[in-house]
C-alpha cells in the first residue's frame, strides 16, 4: 500500500469519512480508518459515554456499529470512490468473530487494508484482552492472516507492561504493520453525585494528554520490529506529527483532535509539507525514526 502522504485519520473518530466532507477534501489524506466494524451489529454502551478530562477525553462508545454485512452492503458503496485509502477497523470478541468479519471484507476491491483492533478497552469480552498478552495477540493475528491477503495492520493496546513484546509477536505472525496506540483505560467520577461519569465506569482515554506516552511507545516499537509503524495518540498539529515520525512512525493517524478541528488532518498535511521545504528534506521517509541523539 503506497500512501499519498503519511497523514491518516483514526478509527472511531472519523466515522466513514462522510461526516467530514463538508469541512475538508478527503482526497488530501493518506488514508481513512473507518469506525470499528464487528461481525454482528452492536448497540454499544449506554449513555453517558463521554467525559472531558484534562487535555483529553474518555469514551465508552463500545464499538457501536451496524455490523459488517451492513457495511458491505450500504456503506462500502458510499465510500469506495473516495480518492484516498479506506481502511476498515475490524473488531470482535472472539477469534472466530475477527476471522468471520475479515472474510466478508476480503472481496472489497477498494479496501486495501484492514486494521485489526485488538485493543478496544470498551467491550466486555475480547477487545483489549487480545492486545494485552503476546499469546492471544499472536493467535488472533495468525487466524486473520490466514484468511486475509491484503495489508494487515494490527492495532496495539498501550495498556501493557511491554508493548514491544506484543508488537514482535504480531510481526512474527505476519502482520504487515502495527498501529499504536489505542486508548488508555481510564475513569472519572463526579465528586458531587459520587457516580462514575461513564455508564461503564471505565473508558478509553485519548487526546493530547496521552501523547508523551504514545510517542514513547512508538519509539520503542520502531526499534523492536522491522515492519512499518503507524503512530497515533494526541496528534493535533504538524509538530506533533513530526514528533511521531521522528520517533519512528512511517505514517500517523489523527484521532480525537478531528472533533475539535474537523480540518486538522488537512492542516497537518500542509504543515508537514512546509516543514520539509523549510528543512530542505526531499521526502518524509527521510524523517522516519530520524530523531538525533546525544
Amino acid at each position: 500500500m503506497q500512501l499519498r502522504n503519511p497523514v491518516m485519520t483514526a478509527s472511531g473518530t472519523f466515522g466513514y469519512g462522510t461526516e467530514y466532507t463538508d469541512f475538508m477534501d478527503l482526497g488530501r489524506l493518506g488514508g481513512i480508518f473507518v469506525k470499528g466494524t464487528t461481525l454482528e451489529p452492536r448497540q454499544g454502551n449506554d449513555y453517558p459515554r463521554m467525559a472531558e478530562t484534562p487535555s483529553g477525553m474518555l469514551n465508552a462508545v463500545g464499538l457501536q456499529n451496524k455490523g459488517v454485512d451492513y457495511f458491505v452492503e450500504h456503506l462500502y458503496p458510499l465510500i469506495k470512490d473516495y480518492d484516498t485509502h479506506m481502511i476498515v477497523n475490524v473488531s470482535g470478541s472472539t477469534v472466530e468473530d475477527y476471522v468471520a468479519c475479515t472474510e466478508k471484507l476480503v472481496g472489497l476491491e477498494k479496501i486495501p487494508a484492514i486494521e485489526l483492533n485488538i485493543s478496544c478497552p470498551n467491550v466486555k469480552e475480547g477487545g483489549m484482552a487480545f492486545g494485552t498478552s503476546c499469546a492471544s495477540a499472536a493467535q488472533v493475528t495468525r487466524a486473520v492472516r490466514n484468511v486475509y491477503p491484503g495489508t494487515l495492520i494490527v492495532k496495539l493496546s498501550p495498556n501493557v507492561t511491554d508493548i514491544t513484546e506484543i508488537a514482535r509477536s504480531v510481526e512474527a505472525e505476519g502482520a504487515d504493520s502495527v498501529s499504536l496506540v489505542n486508548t488508555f483505560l481510564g475513569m472519572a467520577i463526579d465528586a458531587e453525585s459520587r457516580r462514575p461519569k461513564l455508564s461503564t465506569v471505565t473508558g478509553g482515554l485519548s487526546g493530547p494528554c496521552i501523547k508523551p506516552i504514545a510517542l514513547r511507545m512508538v519509539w520503542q516499537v520502531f526499534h523492536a520490529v522491522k515492519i512499518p509503524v503507524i503512530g497515533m495518540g494526541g496528534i493535533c498539529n504538524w509538530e506533533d506529527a513530526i514528533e511521531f515520525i521522528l520517533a519512528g512512525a512511517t505514517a500517523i493517524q489523527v484521532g480525537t483532535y478531528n472533533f475539535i478541528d474537523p480540518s486538522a488532518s488537512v492542516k497537518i498535511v500542509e504543515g508537514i509539507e512546509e516543514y520539509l521545504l523549510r528543512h530542505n528534506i526531499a521526502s518524509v521517509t527521510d524523517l522516519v525514526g530520524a530523531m538525533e541523539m546525544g
Partner: protein
Amino acid sequence: MKQLDFTVRSNEKLNDQNHLLKVVPSDNEQLPEMLPGQFVQILVENAQHTFLRRPISINNIVPERNEIWLLVQSVGEGTQKICEMAVEGRLNMLVPLGNSFTIPSSRGSYLLVGGGVGTAPLLFLGKKLHERGIACDFLLGGASEQNILQRSDFTNYGTLYCTTEDGSLGEKGYVTHHSVLQHKKYDFIFTCGPKPMMVAVARYAHERGIRCEASLENLMACGFGACLCCVEKTTRGNVCACTEGPVFDINELTWLD
C-alpha cells in the same frame, strides 16, 4: 455544515449568569440556512480546562444582518469564557448542526415550553412559526423573574405565560403546574430545558395524546456524527443526538418507559 470564524457584534449581560451574544461571520460570508432546533459548536480558546467544543443552540437568526444570536448560561469554564467574549472578539464555530423542530404544516394550537436556558431555541422556533402565520403560546419557567429571559422578544411572536419557583413572575411553581395547561388544549408541544422538566412535559403530552418534540442537551464530543458519544436510547436503538437530534419526538424516546 461549515467551520467559520465569527465576530462578536454585541454581548449583552441579561442577568448574573446569562449573556446574549450576537455574532456575524467574520468574512461576511452569507450564513447557510439554519433551522430552529439546530445548534452550533463553539471552539473555546484561552481556556485552560476546556478541551472540546461547546454546543449552543441557535437562539435567533436575523437574516438582514446575517447575524446569529446565542443565549449562553455560564455554568463552567467553557460557557464562562464565551460569556466574557469582548465585542469584536472572534469565535470559531461549526454551523449549523443537528436536525430541527418539525414546523407543522397543519393549523392548530402550539405550545412552546422552556425552562432555564432551554428557552434559547424556542425563540427562534416561535419566530419561524410566526413567519408562517402560526401564533403560539410560550410557557417559560425559571427560579425567579430575572431568569425568564428575552420576554419582550417572545411576546413579539405569541402569548407568554410564565412560572417562577419564587412566584416573582407569573404563577408560582413549575411549568407543568401552570393553569394554562388545564384550560387550553394544544395540538403540538415543543419543549427544551432541564430533563426532569422535559420528562414532565412529555408525560403531560403523552397522557393527552398531544404530539410533542423535545430538544435534548446530551453531552457531545464532536457534534457532527463522528464520535457516537451523544447517543440517546430510542425506539430505534441508540442514535446520535447531534445528527438525528437534538430534537426528538417524545414517542421515540424511552423516557416514559
